[in-house]
Each structure stands twice: as C-alpha cells, then as structure tokens.
C-alpha cells in the first residue's frame, strides 16, 4: 500500500534550538527525520506511524566533525559520505571509515546520517560494532541541557534507546586512544553493496608479550541490538592466543550470542559465521603486527 504524503506533517524549523523547542513543547509527538533513508522507506509502503515529523536535514549545528588530541566528535547529522571523506576518521578510526564505506550505496551514504543509524536502532546497524569497540560516548541534547552516556548504554532493547521524549542525539564522541590497538571489522551480507548484515563482528585488542591485555568485541545481528560480547572477551583476557584459547573463545561466543532466524539468515548460520569471524580475527592477532 502506498503512503499518503498528506497524512504526515513535516516541518523544518531550520535550527537546532528551534527543533529542541518544538520537541519540548510536545514531548514524544515529533519524530525527527534526518536523511530519510529509513523513515521514507516506511513512508513509501504506508508503514510510517509518525504523523508529525521534524526535519534535521541541513542544520549545520548537527553536521560537523571536530577533533582534538583526545577524541573525534561527530555531529549526529553527519552523513556517511562526510565520514568517508574525513582524514582524521580514516587515520584514527579505520573501522568507522570502513563501515561508512560499505553502508548502502553511494546514494544512501550521501543522505544517511550517523545519528540516524544509531537512533533507528537496527540490530544490524553498520556503524555500531565499530563505535562499541572504540568505547564511543553519545551526547544527548534537549532544552533541559546536555548529557553524555557510553554508547554501550544507548540501546536498551529492540529498537529502544535511552533518549527521553524531548531529547535528540546530538553527537558521538570517539576516543583516539585505539590507534595503537589491533583492529578488526567484518560484515557478512548477501553482496558487497546495499546488503543488510547477516552478521558483523568488530574488535580492538592490545597484546602484551603475546598475552591479551585489553580486548573489546562487538557484534551486529547477534542480539536484539548491537552489543559488546563481554563473556567472550573475558574468555580471552589475560590469555595467550593459541589453539586452546581460540577454541574456548568460540565456545564462549556461541554461548553468549542470541541470534534469530529472519528473512536474511538463520540463527544457526549467524552463530557459526560469528564464531568463524572471531577465529579469523584471533588468527590474525597471532601474526606479528602489520602482517594481519
């Protein structure tokens, strides 16, 4: 069934302040729309529940990339094209650059925003594993002020998040301290472009004399929302990476993940491929740095 344009109100107040005031006036009544690559799909098929939408497109206060020595801050309205083109992201956040390059197609990347990807809250979100293994924080904003929380606490359930009804995702802060870590990100989908992931795994790790000193693992499409794999991390921390610890890590991952059968894949395929991705990363980790 076709969506009816007249059934939806859409306004573009043009500034961040005006958007926040509108949302504060009627908390929960306004649905923000940025590049529309998610909401307009629902609209086209008549499945867009929101009757009142407020446009975030073209608001400069939301579309920026700033960096200092400690971190890189990305405005929620920054597009994946913006991120692909940014030298600091390419050099310091290669996993995020990679995710930005493989999301959708060129025509999606020019419109889809980092904030939209996170607020939409798909379990398969392409930017999420990278942000989780980089220990990113999100900054939320409303007329009441701003607050920062770990991105890891942002998703609270399937398509649920920590935003209050009058709040907007303002920016994502990504620390730069991971450039010395070994890093990994791989997505498995039906094809290179346009595919929503069947499973994706990201990792950052620091080794000390062959032993795992620090490790972060995060997955998409293995639970109701993108999540760290803490128990799998625990199975590896302090261990040397060898056949035994890889086997134990695979077992820990298989016990930890909660994938489902859906239109794109099966739970069993996702579990097995996730374990294979983990093994690929750990096998790379055993090689000297720079050869992986």
């Amino acid at each position: 069934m076709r969506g009816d344009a007249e059934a939806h109100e859409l306004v573009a107040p043009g500034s961040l302040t005006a958007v926040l005031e509108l949302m504060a006036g009627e908390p929960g009544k306004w649905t923000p729309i940025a590049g529309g690559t998610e909401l307009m799909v629902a609209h086209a098929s008549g499945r867009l529940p929101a009757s009142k939408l407020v446009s975030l497109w073209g608001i400069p206060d939301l579309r920026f990339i700033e960096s200092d020595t400690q971190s890189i801050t990305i405005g929620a309205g920054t597009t994946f094209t913006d991120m692909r083109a940014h030298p600091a992201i390419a050099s310091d956040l290669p996993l995020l650059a990679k995710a930005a390059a493989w999301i959708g197609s060129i025509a999606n990347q020019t419109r889809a925003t980092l904030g939209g990807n996170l607020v939409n809250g798909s379990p398969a979100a392409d930017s999420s594993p990278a942000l989780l293994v980089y220990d990113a924080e999100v900054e939320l904003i409303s007329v009441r002020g701003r607050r920062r929380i770990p991105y890891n606490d942002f998703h609270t359930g399937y398509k649920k998040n920590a935003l209050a009804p009058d709040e907007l995702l303002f920016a994502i802060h990504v620390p730069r301290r991971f450039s010395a870590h070994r890093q990994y990100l791989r997505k498995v989908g039906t094809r290179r472009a346009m595919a929503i992931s069947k499973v994706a795994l990201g990792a950052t790790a620091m080794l000390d004399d062959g032993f795992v000193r620090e490790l972060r693992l995060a997955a998409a499409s293995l639970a109701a929302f993108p999540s760290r794999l803490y128990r799998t991390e625990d199975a590896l921390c302090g261990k040397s990476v060898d056949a035994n610890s890889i086997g134990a890590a695979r077992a820990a991952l298989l016990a930890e993940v909660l994938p489902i059968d859906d239109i794109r894949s099966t739970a069993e395929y996702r579990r097995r491929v996730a374990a294979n991705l983990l093994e690929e990363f750990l096998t790379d980790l055993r090689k000297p740095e720079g050869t992986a």
Partner: protein
Amino acid sequence: MSANWPPISMTVNGIEREVHVPPMKRLLDVLREDLRLTGTKEGCGEGECGSCSVRMDGELVNSCLVPVLQAQGSRVETVEGLQCDGGLHPLQQAFLACGGAQCGICTPGMLMAASHLLERNPHPTMFEIREGLAGNLCRCTGFVRIFESVIAAASRPEQATHAR
C-alpha cells in the same frame, strides 16, 4: 487542492521552480507529477534500486527517499539536464554505442550515478565503477555493457568530465 501548501522552491536543471505540494511528498513524485520530468523513474521506491537517482546540491541521492521539503532551496539535476550543448551527454552516447541501455528503466539512474562518478573521478578503475553504480540495479544487461559504457565515456576525458 494546492492552495494550502506553502511554496517550496528549488532549482531544477538550472531553472527556478516552485511547487505547492505536501512537504512529505517524495521529490521523485514532485519531479514526475508536478514538474512533468518523467525521465526519473521509480523502481523499488525504497532506496534499493537507484532508478530514481538524481543529484541534489551535487550529491547523488535516491529521489524516492527525499521528502520534497528537504529539497527546499537546493539545486536538483535530473537526467533531462544531462544533455550538453543541445546534444547527448558523452555518457548517453556511450550507453547507446556500447549497448548499455536495454529496457531503459534503470538507464536514467545509471546515467546520473555514472556522471556523478566521472565528475569526481574522471578515470575510475573497474572497482570504482562497480562501487559507484552498486546502488543501481539493472535486470537486462547483466551490467557488463553498462560498465563498458562508462569506460568508453571516461576514455574521452574532455567530454566525459563536462560538468553541468
């Protein structure tokens, strides 16, 4: 029917246009129905197939996913604006010469994606061509002739990079 909607203006293929339509109307529908620019096609209507590709402020977008209010004040280029000096764009000539167009539904979107690619990257590698057109689906050609068309146009740099 149109009187209640505030005006939305944009420059389409170099011409100032103003429409009075619901702000959530898709740019695709405004182009086709209100501006009678039917070169831009609808395929999937969900941003997967690229048939509706146009350029908005120089960026390639799927016009089916753009609520027209977000095109307010922007510069929109469609396949109708691709011609140069009253003749076919070198890419259009190459698509004809190389068999890059068959049924024609994907062709306007392919041309927009390809012209966008060549404007930024006049001599793309095959990988870059495949990436640049990855969001555009064709069910006739098997893609190879489309890629060959882009290569043929790119080998004439003085014309292929002609930017509108």
